[in-house]
């Protein structure tokens, strides 16, 4: 038996806030820690880690490791891997959770390689059975759900956004500053410039509501009405592959097999026929609404609510309807 115990969540943050997926992971880790025993630790890595530590405590961390340095003001894999490794050494946990974002995967994969440990990727379920952590991983766009386990310790996993609920459970967390010797290889990559072209843009993986457009939107300009609806709902705007290939929307907005996989609370598909490749990226959404002219469009077969109609009349009317209801009139 190993002495490793407890759970460590490697936090991801932006603009002084923990990412939603990190809060979800902490919330789930609390349940796992109760079943496995041992403390729930979180490592926060930033130039100013104080607010992040406070947030981690609010979600129930027993201990927060703080790696504060100007070297980690902007994400780059090397120093963030060193920070996570320092926390893993300090906490000696039985389970380590990362976020399944590009940054989270970079850090998780390198830590797992350094420890020569197994990595469970993109998990949507985590539970303890007979003292062992089991993970669920949807493969092939959710057409199959694989149940997996790690056969090495610590158990390492990257957690999909929106897979678990967020729940506050305030605690007086112990704060442990960590001094990390950042390795020269990681520091070799220098940040030259941070460019924000879309300020306030909500990440697709993190968004709880997504308004998505397909070929039926017809043009880049057509997305204006989708963006208006999205703004009203506090939603992110996504696109199908056809839209991205036509150059109407940027590549990072593509949902589907060759794009992103999302599972928001609500996915509103406008003018999207719903090819199997698109469905692979969004069919785990909690609720799907579809608007399409073609009553035979396959998207209707997975939509909780579908409207057969012209998106150019339905979408603006919906924006207006949402606005009215929000203002309570």
């Amino acid at each position, binding site marked *: 038996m190993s002495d490793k115990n407890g759970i460590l969540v490697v936090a991801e943050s932006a603009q002084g806030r923990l990412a939603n997926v990190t809060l979800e992971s902490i919330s789930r880790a609390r349940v796992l820690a109760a079943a496995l025993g041992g403390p729930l630790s979180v490592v926060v890595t930033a130039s100013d880690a104080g607010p992040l530590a406070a947030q981690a405590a609010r979600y129930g961390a027993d201990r927060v490791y703080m790696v504060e340095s100007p070297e980690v003001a902007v*994400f780059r*894999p*090397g120093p963030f*891997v060193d920070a996570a490794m320092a926390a893993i050494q300090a906490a000696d946990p039985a389970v380590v959770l990362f976020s399944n974002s590009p940054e989270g*995967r*970079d*850090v998780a*994969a*390198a830590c797992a*390689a350094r420890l*020569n*440990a*197994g*990595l469970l*990727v*993109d998990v949507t379920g985590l539970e303890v059975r007979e003292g062992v952590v089991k993970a669920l991983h949807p*493969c*092939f766009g959710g*057409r*199959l759900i694989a*149940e*997996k*386990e*790690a056969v*090495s310790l610590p158990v390492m996993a990257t957690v999909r956004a929106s897979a678990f609920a967020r729940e506050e459970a305030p605690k007086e967390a112990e704060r442990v500053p960590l001094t990390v010797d950042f390795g020269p*290889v990681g520091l*070799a*990559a*220098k*940040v*030259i*410039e*941070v*460019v924000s*072209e879309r*300020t306030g*843009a909500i*990440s697709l993986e993190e968004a709880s*509501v997504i308004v998505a457009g397909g070929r039926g939107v017809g043009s880049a300009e057509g997305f204006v009405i989708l963006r208006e609806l999205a703004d009203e709902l506090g939603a992110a705007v996504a696109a199908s592959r056809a839209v991205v290939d036509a150059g109407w929307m940027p*590549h990072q907005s593509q949902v589907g*097999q060759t794009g992103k*996989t999302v599972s928001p*609370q609500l996915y509103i598909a406008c003018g999207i026929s719903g090819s199997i490749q698109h469905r692979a990226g969004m069919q785990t959404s909690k*609720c799907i*609404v579809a*608007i399409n002219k073609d009553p035979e469009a396959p998207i*209707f*077969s997975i*939509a*909780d*609510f*579908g*409207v*057969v109609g012209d998106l150019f*009349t*339905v979408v603006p*009317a*919906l924006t207006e*309807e949402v606005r009215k*209801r929000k203002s309570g009139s």
Partner: protein
Amino acid sequence: MRLVVCVKQVIDTEAENRLDPASWRVDRSVNCILNPYDEYAVEEALRLQEAHGGEVTVVCMGPAKAEEAVRKALAMGADAGVLVSDEVLAGSDVQGTAYALAEALKGLQFDLLLFGNRSTDGETGCVPAAVAERLGLPFLSCLAKVEVSGDTLSVHRETEQGYVAYQCPLPAVVSVIKGINEPRYPTMKGIMTSKKKPLEIKDAGALGLDPSQIGQTGAKTRVLAATAPEPRKAGTKVEDDGEGARKIADFLASQKLL
């Protein structure tokens, strides 16, 4: 400039993906293609070669038939290929794959190693970072722009708000995203000459791989079961009679989503 691109052969995105119920491995008996994301990495390497000269070598791990994926990259214009292929590698997980690739790459001299940022079948997106770690080289992922000047790499990494520009000395390891370029189609001449380009097949013995680290035995994660989830059912569908938007809003309100 010495460029190496790691590629994978994946199940055709049009084919039905399934796991072999006996082994829980991906069933590769269907039509397979060069991972679409890797085409961007091959294209980027070819563009760097056009600008700076040098050689492009393609490295692939997979079954014997993965040679087709290597030949496709050669037909696009790469100069040489290495296929890491051995029965004992079947069933390797992220760590086993990264270990075998890293060992194969240690035998090659390169300035820049490129990956596509993920595969369309395994979809872990974790092999590039794990390989870079095992090689002890700087790594930058999800790049939308890659430039080389002397022995300095200048890149843009996509973020949700825009991008972050980094600089890094070579040698280095990168992964590139869809949209960084428009991958070329192999020409007829390219396809003909690809058949004569050097392609070396290396097995576990030739690479001196530790059998305890590879294949199903070396895998540090295992699949216990795989089940199809309850299929999603179609809900309510209405014709827009001018009330479609209001009906959606009513529905959203009933689901507490509004």
